[in-house]
């Protein structure tokens, strides 16, 4: 009994920080309709700034609790100011851009802040040196319970009460609630939205900063905090209902309790448990506990999509020629070049598989790396536990990915837009956490080594041929499916679900089919990659890897069949040749993404198409 009470209290304490972060995210989303990836970065900055500011205050005059509280508040406000600045400089310009680009832009900010934090605070974890009053315990039911955690339990409800007052009793709050429903009408009534949006961003970022600040005494500040928390925050926001602060509170309580008890009951699978809870909630209430259907659902990639155009014949010939040159590479190029070509083949398939669901299907996944990683781990785990040879491992890889694709896709394809993006990302995070946490089974951070191909394919040239045959073959197969009846049906469901249903298509089943096919493709790519590298690591499943896939597809253009191929080649070459040479490549990549979105808010493909049409005089006079 006592143990249950203690776990329950621990859950309540953890719920507070989770609620602060999720409420900030949900408030920002409610008004601006932007899903702010950088919210996790604000949380991380909150922890780091608290570390710096509190220590400075303590050095200046004694280690008083009051100074600690002042440090927390100052750090939170500083984070709020940073958030407001980012809103003014960046987000304000892209409120009308498609959701996908907004998400990418905020991810660019994530990358930039990661490198800034590394430059300022260094790579080490930074614990706050705790004075005695921060280390004190209280006796509860015969057990020792940290006094600080006891205080934290009240922070969540207190902030909920403050937010309630702000939203119900102040003009700012009334305007925010009105804008959540109908921004344009609020503007037509004379309210300057820019001030409102910046204010909301300040508020949301402050909450995230405060969340990071209050966890510092029990954790350290560290560089992976941002992406670790953002997936959890997404889960809480989705479970609570997008835009609902009380929903976020309930969901934070629920998820934190699941985690608190899960850690005791199934210590290696807390995230799986969290996922199950989320799945159950979404099955019963598709829009979360207190959420409502979104009024203006938009296609994630922009306006009505044109028909996907087949590549011009010349591009086909160029591709065939490039393939021949690549296949001949072992005869004239060095081993490094051959290795690079194998990777290129892998990434072409990886990008093509994401494109398959994004382009014709309109299903934008923010967690496609999950299936890539599942493929890689499928091959590696098969070898480790079942001693399957490469020939079987290559088959196992896509099958494992496809099986998970079927399960995750079952939930994902029922949703669209932001919910879909958040859910796919959360799924990927779960797979990542399993690979990372379940050390006995997956080797955790050390990965699995010694995943080598069979004897006949061990020579680099032979493996290149195998990789080309599998990856390019699968890519061509995907292309065939786009122009097969299934592809047409898929596009019909993308353009109008209702109309597709009216002509007898089962939209959900078709979308699920696309999801599974894409997972199969990514899984095969992952399997080929695993044998090429001889090892697998959790980084194969990380969020940045998913974003890489998105960038490849976007670079090439979503609505062209050759797009992902061109995009993968361009991205990978760029990455290998240019970015890796720089120490601060994350900052550079993030900055490039932000600039790209600012320069082409409709996407590069959209921009090119517009230019093309204008050049041909299609634009109305």
């Amino acid at each position: 009994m006592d143990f249950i009470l203690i776990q329950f209290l621990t859950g309540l304490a953890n719920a507070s920080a989770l609620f602060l972060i999720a409420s900030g995210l949900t408030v920002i989303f409610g008004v601006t309709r932007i899903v702010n990836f950088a919210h996790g970065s604000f949380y991380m900055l909150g922890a780091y700034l608290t570390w710096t500011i509190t220590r400075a205050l303590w050095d200046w005059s004694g280690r008083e609790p009051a100074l600690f509280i002042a440090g927390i508040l100052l750090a939170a406000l500083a984070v709020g100011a940073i958030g407001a600045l980012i809103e003014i400089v960046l987000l304000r310009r892209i409120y009308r851009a498609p959701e996908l680009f907004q998400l990418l832009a905020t991810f660019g900010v994530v990358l930039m802040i990661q490198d800034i934090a590394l430059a300022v605070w260094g790579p080490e974890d930074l614990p706050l040196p705790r004075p005695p009053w921060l280390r004190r315990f209280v006796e509860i039911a015969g057990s020792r319970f940290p006094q600080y955690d006891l205080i934290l339990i009240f922070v969540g409800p207190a902030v909920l009460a403050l937010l309630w007052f702000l939203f119900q009793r102040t003009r700012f709050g009334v305007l925010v609630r009105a804008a959540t429903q109908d921004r344009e009408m609020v503007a037509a009534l004379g309210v300057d939205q820019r001030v409102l949006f910046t204010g909301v961003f300040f508020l949301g970022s402050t909450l995230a900063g405060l969340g990071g600040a209050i966890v510092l005494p029990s954790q350290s500040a560290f560089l992976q905090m941002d992406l670790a928390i953002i997936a959890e925050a997404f889960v809480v926001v989705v479970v609570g209902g997008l835009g609902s602060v009380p929903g976020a509170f309930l969901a934070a309580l629920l998820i934190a309790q699941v985690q608190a008890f899960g850690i005791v009951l199934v210590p290696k699978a807390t995230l799986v448990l969290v996922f199950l809870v989320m799945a159950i909630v979404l099955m019963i209430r598709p829009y979360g506990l207190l959420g409502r259907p979104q009024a203006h659902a938009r296609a994630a990639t922009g306006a009505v999509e044109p028909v996907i155009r087949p590549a011009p014949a010349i591009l086909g010939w160029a591709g065939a020629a490039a393939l021949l040159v690549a296949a001949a590479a072992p005869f004239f190029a060095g081993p490094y070049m051959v290795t690079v070509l194998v990777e290129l083949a892998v990434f072409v398939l990886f990008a093509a598989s994401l494109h398959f669901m994004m382009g014709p299907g309109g299903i934008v996944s923010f967690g496609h790396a999950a299936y890539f990683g599942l493929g890689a781990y499928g091959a590696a785990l098969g070898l480790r536990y079942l001693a399957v040879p490469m020939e079987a491992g290559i088959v196992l890889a896509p099958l494992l990915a496809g099986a998970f694709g079927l399960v995750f896709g079952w939930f994902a394809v029922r949703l669209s837009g932001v919910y879909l993006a958040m859910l796919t990302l959360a799924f990927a995070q779960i797979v990542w956490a399993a690979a990372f946490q379940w050390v006995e089974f997956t080797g955790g951070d050390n990965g699995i080594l010694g995943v080598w191909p069979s004897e006949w394919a061990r020579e680099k040239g032979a493996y290149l041929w195998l990789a080309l045959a599998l990856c390019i073959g699968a890519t061509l197969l995907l292309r065939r499916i786009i122009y097969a009846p299934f592809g047409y049906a898929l596009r019909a469901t993308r353009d109008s679900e209702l109309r597709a249903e009216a002509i007898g298509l089962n939209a959900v089943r078709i979308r699920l089919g696309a999801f599974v096919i894409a997972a199969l493709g990514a899984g095969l790519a992952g399997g080929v990659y695993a044998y090429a590298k001889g090892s697998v690591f959790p980084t194969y499943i990380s969020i940045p890897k998913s974003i890489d896939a998105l960038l490849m597809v976007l670079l090439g253009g979503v609505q062209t069949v050759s797009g992902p191929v061109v995009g993968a080649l361009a991205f990978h070459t760029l990455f290998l040749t240019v970015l890796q040479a720089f120490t601060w490549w994350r900052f550079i990549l993030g900055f490039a993404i932000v600039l790209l979105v600012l320069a082409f808010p409709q996407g590069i493909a959209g921009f090119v198409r517009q230019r093309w049409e204008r050049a041909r005089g299609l634009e109305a006079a």
Partner: protein
Amino acid sequence: MLSVRQLNAFYGRAHILRDVALEVARGEVLVLLGRNGAGKSTTMKAIMGLVRPAPGSSVSFAGTEIAGSPPYAIARLGLGYVPEDRRIFTDLTVMENLEVGRQKPRDGLDPWTPQRLFAIFPNLAAMKDRPGGRMSGGEQQMLTIARTLMGNPRLVLLDEPSEGLAPVIVQQMAEAIRAVKAAGLTVVLSEQNLHFAERVADRAAIIEKGIVRWTGTLDALRAEPAIKAQYLSV
């Protein structure tokens, strides 16, 4: 007060308004008449900045050029807008809806307060704390006008205020518009209902396919059955 010249507007590539011109004098009630899809709502949205006026358009309000300005800036100059689909904030109470509309008092005009508005719209007084989503269509229509008046506009654009209302409510609406006029405001309203227009308006402009076909007083319009037959569905 309001002078619109060569107003052109597009939805995508569709050319909706073609060189619309309107002159509205201080204190008068002008009615835009036209059939469904004639371009009445688009004209109002373009004046308000909710639809971008094409380059070359001119909208001048109380001496200030406002074509191309953002909606909030136009509203702050004293232009009120009541959309045809009402767009009440359904989660907000009546009082909160009014609060969203509130702007600073304007020189030379008696500032609107909820009390003053309740005198014109007595129905609202009884439901101050009711969420907008739980009001009847007529009550919502009253609220949306009251909400706009809270901004102390000099001129209000009223898009089809009588649409879909029961005869009793239409009667109240006509009285309300006369009260607004009596308070010194200028009104531009759009209508398909000629009888309603005749009860409240001084002058009319007839729009068809985005082109202003006729302007004149309502008395003059009464004398031209041919015009009525051609452009209006009487």
